[in-house]
């Protein structure tokens, strides 16, 4: 029972990170119907940005931990937003009207470019982060095994919840959010009604990147180490989460993320840690084949 509770907590923490990344996938797909292949690598870039900023503030400028983290969070969101904005403007927007395969190939190329760029600029080795928030609050004890919830995990879950709530408000209640939902449903009509579709799409990319940056900060806090190759697998898992939850649905992405996090930790604990990535990819395949609209998605009826 204690193991189960621990895995539950771990799974929800991991799932929060996946959910944040998944929102980026689902929003971009919802508005322009494209799977942003490079999003996982944007997340990885954000983790590096966060790492470097953190080091600048704590070692160079000698700030204390918590204020440094807050500033790092905000700055990382801004810088990653800028990265994604640039990527969208240069690699995706020119291809928007063209051949279906072109933006996908461009995104794949961008993904390869980003991971290798980081490899070249920052070096191929793992970058360890000084550990933070190492305390754990014990919750449940059984046979000498203590299930506890770490400060880290609390921070992650709280920050995620707060940001999601902010984000939800942004999408549901503000004019920007309305414009975005309008573009998702009918781009041409939205344009005819005076909505700046280009700007809305760019902002969608920026928002997705900002949330990925939050995930990036959480990631370095949680795992304590980051590497240039860390974009691919979390990216795929987050995409699985988006599909599982229903592509195009924001709450779906979050629920999907939590589910994937739970499945991954439970699988590693109770079955085999070696095959956990196989489990993730298999889940992706199964979801796409048997449940392509996901849990909360809307089924598409094709017009003949």
């Amino acid at each position, binding site marked *: 029972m204690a193991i189960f509770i621990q895995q539950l907590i771990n799974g929800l923490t991991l799932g929060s990170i996946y959910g944040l990344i998944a929102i980026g996938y689902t929003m971009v797909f919802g508005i322009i119907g494209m799977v942003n292949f490079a999003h996982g690598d944007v997340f990885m870039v954000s983790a590096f940005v966060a790492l470097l900023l953190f080091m600048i503030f704590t070692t160079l400028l000698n700030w204390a931990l918590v204020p440094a983290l807050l500033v790092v969070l905000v700055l990382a969101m801004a810088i990653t937003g800028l990265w994604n904005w640039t990527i969208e403007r240069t690699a995706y927007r020119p291809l928007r009207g*063209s051949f279906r395969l072109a933006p996908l190939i461009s995104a794949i*190329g961008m993904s*390869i470019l980003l991971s290798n760029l980081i490899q070249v600029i*920052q070096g191929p080795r793992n*970058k360890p982060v000084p550990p933070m928030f190492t305390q754990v609050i014990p919750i449940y004890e059984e046979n000498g095994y203590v299930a506890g919830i770490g400060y880290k995990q609390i921070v992650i879950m709280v920050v995620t919840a707060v940001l999601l709530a902010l984000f939800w408000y942004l999408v549901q209640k503000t004019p920007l959010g309305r414009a975005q939902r309008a573009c998702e449903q009918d781009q041409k009509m939205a344009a005819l009604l005076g909505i700046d579709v280009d700007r809305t799409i760019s902002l969608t990319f920026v928002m997705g990147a900002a949330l990925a940056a939050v995930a990036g900060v959480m990631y370095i806090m949680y795992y304590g180490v980051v590497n240039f190759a860390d974009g691919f697998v979390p990216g795929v898992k987050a995409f699985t989460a988006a599909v599982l939850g229903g592509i195009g649905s924001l709450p779906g992405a979050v629920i999907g993320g939590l589910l994937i996090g739970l499945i991954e930790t439970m699988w590693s604990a109770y079955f085999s840690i070696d095959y956990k990535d196989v489990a993730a990819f298999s889940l992706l395949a199964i979801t796409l084949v048997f449940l392509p609209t996901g849990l909360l998605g809307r089924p598409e009826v094709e017009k003949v």
Partner: protein
Amino acid sequence: MSTEMSAPSSPFPLVKSLKQAGFVGMVMFGLCVPIVAFRAEQNMNNQLVLQSRWWLTLVFCVLAMIGSFLFSLYTHQKSNKAHSSAPSTVTKALSALAPRLTPLGFACVIAYPLVMLAINGPGGSIKWIDNFGIQILIYVMLGWGLNIVVGLAGLLDLGYVAFYAVGAYAYALIATKVIPDTFPELGFWSFWICLPISGLLAALWGIILGFPVLRLRGDYLAIVTLAFGEIIRLVLINWVDFSNGYAGLTSIPRPSFFGIPFNASEEGFAAVFDLEFSPIYRTIFLYYVILALSLLTAFVTIRLRRLPIGRAWEALREDEIACRSLGINTTITKLTAFAIGAGFGGFAGCFFAARQGFISPESFVFLESAQILAIVVLGGMGSLFGVVVASIALVGGIEILRELDFLKQVFGEAFDPSQYRMLIFGFAMVLMMLWKPRGLIAHREPSIVYKEKKSIGSDMVQEGHG
């Protein structure tokens, strides 16, 4: 149907371009801080320390500004030229060159190893025939195989490397385990026996993997095939009893000259044909084997295109619903494309294992699928010639990087161009989509002609998924 219209020559907007360059510079600065400006490395105590590189940031910003300014000049000049909807010079040149080049190209390709041998001698030419010739031909064959799936039938397959792996591991396992145990006397023939078996196994996998997924639309099909490719690779890594995991399979027998091995012994090729022993003979033979396999792929593709199945593939690519309304069983049609493409991938995999003598799951990563897909898309629209050009450009280009030793003198001894291989490749993929989204060969030849053969421009071809 191009109408030539000359726009009035407008003066170059200098201030606007300068402002734009400034803006680009600022964006670049924002992008560079902190990733370029600082580098985190571990010091002696395994602690992370920061090194600053502001000069590099400055270089990037200046380059970006210059680049933006040059781009403004380019677009200005382009818009001042006569407007026409005719295809660009490169496309026109390549399309015109294609039919004329084929007999000449054929002769070149056949003569290539002998020419290299003559120029560089047996020792020096191994690299040219193997790393360039054979490597490019492997990718040409993989490209032609994937071309059936993506180029003709329009099915987005991001996991083609899975079939490559099936072919390679099939040969490796049969040749190192099954044949020595059960039919040891077949030893020298193992490659030739396993070649068709690898192809068939890969085609079978194509049917198994294709069946549940081929009804998915565009992007989803791409992701699911990617997932399958990764699953196969991860299983190969983890199922150590079967595949020997990361360590891979070694001592895979090389192909023989139809029963005569290429070794230094008395029954060896050199001894039988009264020549002095040299490893070059096997290399040249391998070259011709892969050449023959690729030509087989090309032949089958050309024939199938003229048959009803090939036409159905191209119709499927355009409009699946119309196909169904004409009685075409689209599931079977898609499966056929998938299976045939997979089969050729399997042949290529078998050859790859035989050429290397050693395989491991690291050779079958997603990046390979991406590379092959990039070759097919850059080639354009199901064009066989396009795939050849794209292979030479992408694969040959990347291999050439290894030869650029002179760059060491410019950037210092620690500079290793091959580190930048993948970076340049990713960059090239994005650039080529921006420049030629429909590929280099931007037109389609009809599969049957009544009176007059007319090429159809790629912008006419739809790529609807239902």
